[in-house]
């Protein structure tokens, strides 16, 4: 997605000790480490590619490939990532302790486009998907943009980042699969409700920013189309290199001529214009 003509920051591959790696919700961990060079340039939506090597042995890791995670927050020289345990890599990662070395490549990818007259921003995060929207939310609130936050989770125990988002002034709406907190059902139902509200005309220049499971992204895209609201999606495909060379991470993107092209989530993305994604 051509969101910006500004050159993206230079990339670094840093070997850095883990500062903290703590469980923040069921199956979810927050990991912090000092990466001054990455922290300096990181833009909302950008990600890091992390080498989860056991015992620090680079060439012999049975987890050969790195794993991509969005930069969750930046504080001074430190960056953090919020991740869900879904397979072997994240499982091993969750066992790493402060002081253990981590290899972090970044910052990678493009960034969210924030129009000047944006009002309001609606961010929609499913599961760990909210991790990809935190830096964006912070940036939006800093510029005083009214921001609605819709977060979806399986249940209360897996709910992420709600307090942090509230603290920075995001108007929060919650949906859980089991109704243990907030709306019992899909987050897209909340989205429709909001757009149907009588004062929905207040949404003068709205933009939806979404990240989460494919199903949710497709549903959000559909609603956005129905209400003609421009939407940006942060895609999370399986990655090889994250450097744009293996072509393993592509998604199908509609071209102006009606055809399509496979574009790299790691390079042209991870942020794409929802209207252009061919599912």
């Amino acid at each position, binding site marked *: 997605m051509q969101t910006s003509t500004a050159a993206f920051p230079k990339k670094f591959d840093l070997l850095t000790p883990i500062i903290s790696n703590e469980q923040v919700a069921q199956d979810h961990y927050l990991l912090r480490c000092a990466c001054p060079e990455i922290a300096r340039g990181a833009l909302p939506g950008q990600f890091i590619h992390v*080498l989860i090597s056991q015992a620090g042995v680079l*060439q012999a890791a049975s987890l*050969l490939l*790195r794993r991509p995670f969005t930069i969750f927050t930046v504080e001074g020289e430190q960056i953090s990532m919020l991740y869900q345990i879904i397979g072997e890599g994240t499982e091993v990662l969750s066992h790493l302790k402060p002081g253990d070395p981590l290899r972090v490549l970044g910052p990678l990818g493009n960034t969210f486009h924030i129009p000047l007259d944006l009002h309001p921003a609606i961010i929609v995060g499913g599961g760990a998907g909210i991790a990809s929207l935190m830096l964006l939310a912070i940036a939006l609130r800093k510029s005083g943009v009214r921001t609605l936050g819709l977060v979806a989770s399986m249940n209360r125990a897996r709910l992420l980042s709600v307090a942090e988002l509230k603290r920075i002034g995001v108007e929060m709406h919650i949906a859980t699969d089991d109704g243990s907190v907030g709306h019992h059902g899909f987050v897209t139902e909340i989205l429709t409700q909001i757009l149907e509200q009588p004062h929905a005309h207040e949404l003068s220049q709205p933009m939806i920013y979404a990240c989460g499971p494919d199903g949710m992204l497709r549903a959000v895209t559909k609603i956005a189309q129905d209400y003609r609201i421009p939407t940006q999606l942060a895609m999370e495909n399986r990655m090889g290199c994250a450097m744009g*060379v293996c*072509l*393993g991470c592509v998604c199908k993107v509609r071209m102006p001529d009606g055809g399509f092209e496979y574009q790299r989530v790691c390079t042209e993305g991870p942020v794409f214009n929802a209207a252009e994604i061919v599912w």
Partner: protein
Amino acid sequence: MNSNPTSLEVHVAGIRMKNPVMTASGTFGYGSEYADFIDLNQLGAIVVKGITSVPWSGNPMPRITETPPGMLNAIGLQNVGVDGFIEKKLPYLRNFDVPVIVNICGERLEEYLEVTEKLDAADGVAAIELNISCPNLHCGGMSFGVDPELTYELVNSVREKTALPLLVKLSPNVTDITVIARAAEAAGTDGLSVINTLLGMAIDIKTRRPMLANITGGLSGPAIKPVALRLVWQVYNAVNIPIIGMGGIMTGDDAIAFFIAGASAVAVGTANFVNPRAPLDVIDGVHTYLKQYKLDSIKELVGSLQT
């Protein structure tokens, strides 16, 4: 032999290189992607992603998956096409003092020839690497590279179209690689790249679907190193042209094993995805080994296996 005791310079298949370490096709893009990490001038050579006569859009997703420790890919040769390459990618590479080797592929003989002619006429191509593992449409999709006669015909025809150094990249998925290697040699190739990926497959047992949309894919990385080493050694004993060895090279020590088995140069592939400085680390490792064992040049290692 070189007077500088630890010079890594080599001259392989008509390609002069500062050191015997290149990047493997499809794992290093068109060079610019790694510019934040690597001074391209330090590489032995760059082999670019496979190029075809017209742009290919490639296979549907998912295209890659991991296996311990390796990866499967079924990219389907997504590429900008030869014209796009010459226009958009080659100018950047001309800024560097590094041989650019262009990997080419096609579904018909004519496509290979068309691409070869255009590259031959272009400025800044040091050599052509012929990927003969592509499906051959004339033979029901069976790849050129599994049949010695098809291999001979293809290599011979390409050979006639260009005076550029020619490498033929062999497939490991054959009963006897030496037959194919000799066919390519007889047809006039200057060198052989050994090996391309092993054909493999992975299954998601939750959904009972293949992990790759293409069902099968190419296995690369450390898992295939023992097979790659064996094939390099077999080819080394069968031909008299130089070999570029590859398959699972992650470190300088891995590269050394390939030299000992018979490779005159090596290529670093999947390792780039794990470590963006991998080729430089490999070069350093090779250097260190030569010093430690007091060897003057790579040549003393090539094929030096004590059997």
